[in-house]
């Protein structure tokens, strides 16, 4: 199979029309090979090391962060480095920008050339890089900077504890699986010998040989049961200790009884033992457990990765005025923190210096930026849309929004109660029924028919063997493994093991507005014409400011202009061309707003206009007075005398009328279709927002949601959801903000986009990635289908019992029959679960055709984060 590039359409397919950077594959200025000096340097590093084949073998994924080196300050790695007992040091970092297997190769090859590094290995599933080296701890920064120079972004891991814990369980299950597999294979081999010898026709096997083979089986099976059964025994004991019962109780009881009875038979020299059934049962069940554990571990690791990559490094201003970049967790109260324009604020605190419009939508649900100045309290996660701010960090007191939300979350979770999964509900009735059945069988044979005690016990135990819930225990996990895997590939991370069943019961869906139904960032909503937009985007492509990025996103393919100068907090300039705030572009100052008609003949006054504005190259630097800057920030958020209060950018070109770009929140691209589809599927849709009534009404009208509530406080949202639950409804809450997190905890089940606030994402049972809302609908459809498959599986395994139990009660069940029946019923259940792999069909009118693109990677979808190139359908 060819391993050469699979370039995504557009990146390498049209080199003539759009020159792309030879390193990162992003658009580059027409005259150059590289988009920026960083890429040029990275390309040089790769070529110098003789790793040039990387460029031929890689395939770029548009959904992943491009490989463009960024001049960011370095993380303080010291806190994340672990000193190992043998004198070496270890560091694990999350890698952002892994495009495909070739990137893994490149990173490992580059690290292999570093002296002193013992292990430098990328885990492609979890997208983590593990470094072990022999030198001093300070060497870490050398390795990290080597990789960062290539354009990857590395973020040190702090949540390593959770991963290690999970790893231990996973390894324990695998070891148990190995032992059970070994025992099952060997015992079954011996058993077949016994059965063949006992057919009667070829009487080649004497009682002494049978006894010997039974003893050997016992010697293999009993340690195996003791070892491989531990996960089930532990779970069963834990359930019994809480006076509950779960599926592991009948499993443990069945396995132990079967083993004990078989041992008894072996000692007594009987004809039948069931060691093979006991170990095969454990083997099958352990396969299910291992797969289940792996699927959920993958989803959890991806969720962890998402949060780690978004963690913000905070620029702390030291007493001597120097800047130190530190992870959020290491910022102390009273530290002074510098927040540059376009950055997210990393700490809770109070503004000491500077004025800027802040986008707090992730915190409060308020979609429009608010102006903040000295004295204003700000929360971590707020986006700074204006100039530089100095923030004094405060301790997380009881009065902050975060503390309030955490308190509400705890209260809501305490009220939510424990959800009893289907399997445990079945088990709670199944276990007493089969145990009663076995008891009655014993009493019937011993008491009524008068057979010897041992024989009656034997028959009663065969009932327990036949009813030992192998298929029943696989019925639910088999479905869950497949459904979780499918959702994962579609960009949805199922974090809770019971989420699927709770999702299937949902009848009411409550949406948050800002960031959930709408795009996480403000989007360009009005602009004069496409040519102007493209021209402005060429400047904007050079900035990381959120508004500039929205503008570039709206323009589509943009070739960045060469020589653009960024004036922090004001705008961008390229010679006489300016893009930025109203005052930065001199609107109403030197410029006279012209009627649109004059744009037709812009050339006539071009030279003169440029001169009269004193906009000669270089003059831009001179205008950064404090007044001007403050003015600019005011205007960026609240231009006051214009027709709107929305954020805007102005674009001024010599000789042309200045153009205005307005920004507003826009619904996610498929929000309308998804809402319509959910309504058609019979779900009641509600909108609960913390935003102003006018903004809520605008979006709700556009999406045709009639039940809406605006200006909801976090507690108000919880109250609304609990009122719905009082009415007997099962509620799915979809929200992203910190203010939604208590409501997420209060609902029966909750979902968050991957762009959500950290707290919300941690609380949510389901995290969906990408720009689209349709994953929510897909998850609901799949959950319903999963529930149906679970019910079918349970019916199948109970049906099998109804057929087999009378045979067992009658005493006709022999070991080979038990083994055959058990395996076939398990296979039947697995086969039925595999049907979930069928694609989800969307019952929708043909006009909603574009919905079909939901599961395909759009240019901005993040779904491939957890996915590698190789495991596509």
């Amino acid at each position, binding site marked *: 199979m060819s391993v050469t590039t699979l370039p995504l359409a557009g990146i390498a397919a049209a080199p003539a029309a759009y020159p792309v950077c030879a390193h990162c594959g992003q658009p580059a200025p027409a005259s150059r090979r590289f988009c920026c000096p960083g890429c040029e340097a990275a390309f040089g590093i790769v070529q110098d090391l003789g790793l040039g084949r990387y460029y031929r073998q890689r395939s770029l994924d548009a959904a992943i962060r491009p490989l463009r080196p960024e001049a960011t300050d370095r993380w303080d790695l010291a806190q994340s480095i672990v000193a190992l007992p043998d004198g070496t040091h270890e560091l694990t970092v999350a890698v952002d920008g892994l495009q495909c297997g*070739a990137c893994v190769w490149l990173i490992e090859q580059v690290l292999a050339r570093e002296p002193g590094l013992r292990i430098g290995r990328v885990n492609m599933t979890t997208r983590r890089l593990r470094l072990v080296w022999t030198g001093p701890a300070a060497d870490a920064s050398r390795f990290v900077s080597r990789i960062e120079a290539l354009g990857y972004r590395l973020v040190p891991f702090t949540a390593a504890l959770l991963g290690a814990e999970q790893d231990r369980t996973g390894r324990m299950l695998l070891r148990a699986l190995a032992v059970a597999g070994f025992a099952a294979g*060997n015992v079954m081999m011996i058993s077949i010998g016994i059965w063949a010898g006992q057919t009667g026709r070829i009487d080649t096997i004497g009682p002494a040989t049978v006894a010997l083979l039974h003893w050997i089986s016992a010697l293999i099976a009993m340690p195996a049961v003791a070892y491989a059964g531990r996960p089930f025994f532990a779970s069963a004991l834990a359930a019994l200790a809480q006076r509950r019962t779960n599926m592991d109780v009948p499993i443990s009881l069945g396995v132990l009884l079967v083993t004990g009875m078989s041992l008894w038979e072996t000692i007594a020299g009987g004809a039948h033992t069931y060691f093979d059934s006991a170990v095969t049962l454990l083997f099958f069940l352990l396969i299910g457990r291992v797969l289940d554990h792996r699927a959920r571990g993958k989803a959890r690791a991806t969720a962890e990765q998402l949060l780690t990559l978004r963690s913000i490094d905070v620029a702390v201003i030291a007493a001597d005025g120097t800047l130190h970049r530190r992870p959020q967790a290491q910022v102390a109260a009273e530290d002074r923190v510098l927040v540059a324009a376009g950055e997210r604020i990393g700490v809770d605190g109070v503004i000491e210096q500077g004025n800027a419009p802040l986008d707090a939508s992730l915190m409060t649900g308020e979609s429009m930026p608010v102006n903040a100045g000295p004295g204003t309290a700000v929360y971590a996660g707020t986006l700074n849309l204006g100039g530089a701010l100095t923030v004094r960090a405060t301790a997380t007191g009881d009065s902050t929004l975060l503390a309030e939300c955490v308190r509400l979350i705890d209260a809501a979770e305490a009220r939510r109660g424990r959800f009893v999964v289907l399997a445990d509900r079945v088990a709670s009735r199944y276990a007493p029924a089969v145990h009663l059945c076995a008891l009655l069988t014993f009493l019937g044979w011993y008491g009524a028919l008068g057979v010897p005690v041992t024989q009656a016990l034997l028959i009663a135990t065969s009932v327990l063997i036949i009813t030992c819930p192998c298929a029943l225990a696989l019925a639910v996990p088999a479905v869950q493994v497949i459904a979780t895997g499918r959702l994962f590939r579609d960009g949805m991370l199922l974090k809770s093991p019971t989420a699927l069943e709770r999702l299937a019961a949902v009848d009411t869906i409550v949406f948050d507005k800002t960031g959930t139904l709408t795009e996480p960032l403000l989007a360009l909503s009005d602009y004069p014409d496409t040519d102007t937009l493209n021209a402005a985007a060429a400047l904007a492509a050079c900035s990381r400011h959120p508004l500039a990025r929205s503008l570039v996103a709206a323009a589509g393919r943009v070739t960045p202009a060469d020589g653009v100068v960024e004036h922090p907090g004001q705008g961008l300039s390229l010679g006489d061309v300016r893009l930025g705030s109203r005052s930065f572009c001199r609107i109403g100052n030197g410029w006279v707003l012209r009627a649109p008609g004059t744009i037709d003949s812009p050339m006539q006054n071009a030279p003169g206009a440029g001169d009269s504005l004193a906009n000669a190259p270089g003059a831009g630097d001179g205008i950064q007075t404090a007044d001007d800057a403050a003015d600019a920030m005011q205007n960026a958020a609240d231009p006051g005398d214009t027709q709107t209060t929305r954020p805007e950018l102005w674009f001024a070109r010599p000789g042309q009328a200045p153009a205005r770009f307005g920004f507003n929140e826009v619904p996610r691209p498929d929000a309308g279709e998804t809402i319509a589809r959910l309504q058609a599927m019979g779900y009641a849709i509600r909108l609960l927002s913390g935003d102003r009534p006018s903004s809520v009404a605008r979006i709700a009208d556009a999406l045709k949601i009639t039940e809406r509530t605006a200006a909801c406080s976090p507690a108000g949202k919880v109250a609304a959801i609990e009122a719905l639950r009082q009415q007997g409804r099962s509620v799915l809450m979809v929200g992203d903000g910190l203010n939604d997190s208590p409501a997420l905890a209060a609902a029966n089940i909750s979902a968050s986009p991957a762009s959500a606030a950290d707290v919300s994402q941690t609380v949510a049972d389901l995290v969906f990635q990408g720009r689209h809302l349709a994953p929510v609908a897909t998850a609901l459809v799949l959950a319903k289908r999963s529930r149906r498959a679970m019910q079918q599986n349970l019916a199948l395994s109970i049906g099998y019992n109804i057929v087999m139990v009378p045979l067992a009660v009658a005493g006709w069940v022999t070991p080979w029959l038990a083994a055959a029946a058990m395996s076939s019923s398990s296979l039947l259940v697995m086969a039925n679960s595999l049907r979930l792999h069928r694609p989800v069909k969307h019952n929708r009118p043909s006009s909603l055709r574009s919905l079909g693109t939901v599961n395909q990677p759009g240019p901005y979808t993040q779904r491939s984060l957890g996915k*590698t*190139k190789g495991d596509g359908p």
Partner: protein
Amino acid sequence: MTIILYLLAISLAMGGCGVLVFLWTLRSGQYDEMDGAANRIRYDED
């Protein structure tokens, strides 16, 4: 019938070796990541 004893001992020894090798691969972390191994083979040096 003593041949059975020999054969059983041999088969169990072979199976036991298999389990031990598996446990060793497990301990050395070869199952921690499945995707990477599948991809690495395509890029390894000749």
